[in-house]
């Protein structure tokens, strides 16, 4: 007989594991992103405390106890920001001292600018390639004609009255538009096999990139008049425009150079095999690819130029920052509204530049035909 006394093994279920701590939902998000270990928790708490300390008084100053309505300094009675100041100066800040009755001309040129810039989005394919470039290059001159008025038989407005943020916008776009093709020429010159063309391009590019912008503006206002024949009086804004365009061209040339370096040699060889001439190769095969590759940098350079238009204050051009400074020293508004003024101009600029960088990201995505993962 066998001793069968071994007790039968009884099935005993192990205790079920606790449910996993939630991995979705707001609590899990907080745990993963803010309270992930003691160090992170401490940092989070410190930052939150800081934000709590800063934001409520800031909002209070900006909005809750700020003055919004009124026309003079005496309407700013509360402890908050005095937005009345901005309101009172808003026309100056945007249009400069352009005569009231002629403001539609500035608006018209800004609308035209928007039309020209957005045309690639709505023009049909067939027209796009022919019209876009022509529209762009003609635009600055049309805008000048509209603003100046003499050519079109309108009332003449001297450039002394142009100013404000619209001037920043128009000057920046006019010099970007002309600087881009000029920069492309310089970049081509830099890559050329012709030694003279190459060295001249290199000198031009390095000069305009290596010198502080301010020095360029200064040369534009002090030295450029010496270069013209005696007695010619070249308009101050025109000189600034020349300087800005050359400056833009120098930076753009380097941007294009980066683009050129990204084009494989096979592209040149293929177009040579097709029997395309130099200009056909450059304009039909290389340029589109260069623009695609360097789009982010083109827009970054444009944003830089747009921001740099504020430097014109130093040579006495009434762009927006200069207008703000004038407003701050106005005898009717001596309440010390510097913070309000700078905040306002800063926000306006921020919106424009941030918007442009979003557009850049958008275009980059649109143009992206590569297979990078």
């Amino acid at each position, binding site marked *: 007989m066998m001793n069968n006394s071994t007790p039968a093994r009884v099935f005993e279920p192990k205790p079920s594991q606790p449910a996993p701590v939630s991995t979705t939902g707001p609590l899990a998000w907080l745990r993963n*992103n*803010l309270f*992930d270990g003691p160090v*992170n928790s401490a*940092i*989070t708490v410190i*930052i*939150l405390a800081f934000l709590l300390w800063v934001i409520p008084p800031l909002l209070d100053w900006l909005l809750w106890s700020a003055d919004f309505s009124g026309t003079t300094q005496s309407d700013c009675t509360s402890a908050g920001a005095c937005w009345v100041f901005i309101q009172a100066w808003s026309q100056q800040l945007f249009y400069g001292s352009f005569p009231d009755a002629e403001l539609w001309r500035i608006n018209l040129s800004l609308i035209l600018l928007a039309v020209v810039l957005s045309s690639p989005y709505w023009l049909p394919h067939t027209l796009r390639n022919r019209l876009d470039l022509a529209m762009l290059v003609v635009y600055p001159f049309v805008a000048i004609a509209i603003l100046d008025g003499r050519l079109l038989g309108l009332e003449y407005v001297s450039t002394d009255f142009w100013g404000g943020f619209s001037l920043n916008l128009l000057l920046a776009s006019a010099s970007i538009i002309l600087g881009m093709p000029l920069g492309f020429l310089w970049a081509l010159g830099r890559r050329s*096999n*012709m*030694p*003279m*063309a190459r060295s*001249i391009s290199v000198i031009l590019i390095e000069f305009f990139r*290596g*010198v*502080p*912008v*301010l*020095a360029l503006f*200064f*040369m534009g206002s*002090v*030295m450029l*008049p*010496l*270069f*013209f*024949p*005696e007695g010619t009086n070249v308009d101050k804004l025109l000189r600034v425009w020349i300087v800005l365009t050359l400056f833009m061209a120098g930076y753009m040339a380097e941007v294009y150079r980066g683009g050129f370096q990204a084009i494989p040699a096979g592209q040149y060889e293929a177009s040579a095999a097709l029997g395309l001439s130099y200009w056909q190769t450059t304009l039909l095969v290389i340029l589109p690819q260069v623009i695609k590759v360097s789009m982010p940098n083109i827009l970054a350079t444009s*944003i830089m130029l747009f*921001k*740099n238009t*504020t*430097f014109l*204050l*130093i040579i006495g051009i009434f762009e927006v*920052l200069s207008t703000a*400074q004038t407003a*701050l020293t106005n005898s009717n508004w001596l309440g010390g509204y*510097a*913070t309000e003024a*700078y905040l306002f*101009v*800063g926000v306006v*600029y*921020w919106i424009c*530049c*941030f918007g442009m*960088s979003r557009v850049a990201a958008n275009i980059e995505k649109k143009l992206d035909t590569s297979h990078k993962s």
Partner: protein
Amino acid sequence: MSGAKRPQPQSSSAPAFYNNPHVRAVFYQILLVCTLGYLFFVIIANTLANMEARGIKTGFDFLTTTAGFDILMSLIPYDATGTYLDTFFVGLLNTILVSIIGIILATLLGFVMGVAHFSRNWLVSRLAVAYVETFRNIPLLLQIFFWYFAVLAALPSARNSLNLADAFFLNVRGLYLPAPVEEAGATLFYIAIAVAIAAIIWFRRYAKKRQDDEGVQLPVWRISLAILVALPLLASLFGGAPFSFEYPELRGFNFRGGITVIPELMALALALTVYTGAFIAEAVRAGIQAVPHGQTEAARSIGLKESKIMKLIVVPQAMRVIVPLLNSEYQSLVKNSTLATAIGYPDLFTVFVGTSLNQTGQAIEIVFMTLAVYFAVNMTISLLMNIFNRKVSLVERK
């Protein structure tokens, strides 16, 4: 074999000489040079005629004449009896000072913010993004004005200055710091520092050799730090205190003694730091993102600690992308320091191109000298950064 005769190429008409690329190249270049030469000729002729008509003197004689104006701040002894050459050097040193301060602080801020972008803490990474997007998109001049006219101008008067330990004072007239004054033990102290640095260099070499030969990792950082602290400390124990401090004191309406940092310098340095820092943060972010993720994963799989992964794997590879970008950021910082002229910080541009040019009217010489300086400074930065770049760049198979 087909019996058909192949048509022979008609070689009788050689391409016309004007279709020869070499001939064309020469022609275009001659055209270009002639046009530019003519342009230059006209410009120079016009300039000379204009200068004569306006009675502008030429030549560098003005450099030795007395300038006769005071400068707000100078690192070398200067008063109104100095020459224009002196004003040039005062301005140059002030430019270099603000550039160095700006470059160091902007690099620190930029690196912190660039790395913070990758923080696992959501708040930290959002704050880094907010910082970059805010300050990158606002004109620098506006930021300078903001710090100068809105923030620093709102500081209390000298009597009510912000006071830290009775040694540091901050008020509307500037920042006042205690100034070190050399005492008897200073020489020994300097020698100790030099010895410490030499010892550290030797120790690092030794540690590297040990690691290459035996695979032993010595705690290089801790020992270096210990040497750097201990030797000067010993020196001051034996040789007596190397420095005494001269503290700023309120006398009448203003502080006397100590080091004064004028508000113009503070505003300019702050604005340059914050503005350039945002761009450097972007460069650092781009550099870190350029390191393939597989590198981090591979490092984790061989069991490296997170801190070592950053230090040994990610940062060295990211530096290859970051350094060229840093180079151009530093150069634009130096160029942007000319905006000092807007708030009256006496940098080269303010002093020399501003005041001196106004007084002498010698635009060509002064602008030429200034441009040469900025070129030279930027070339120096470029040279240093390229040397550094060669150190961090990838060594490929030969």
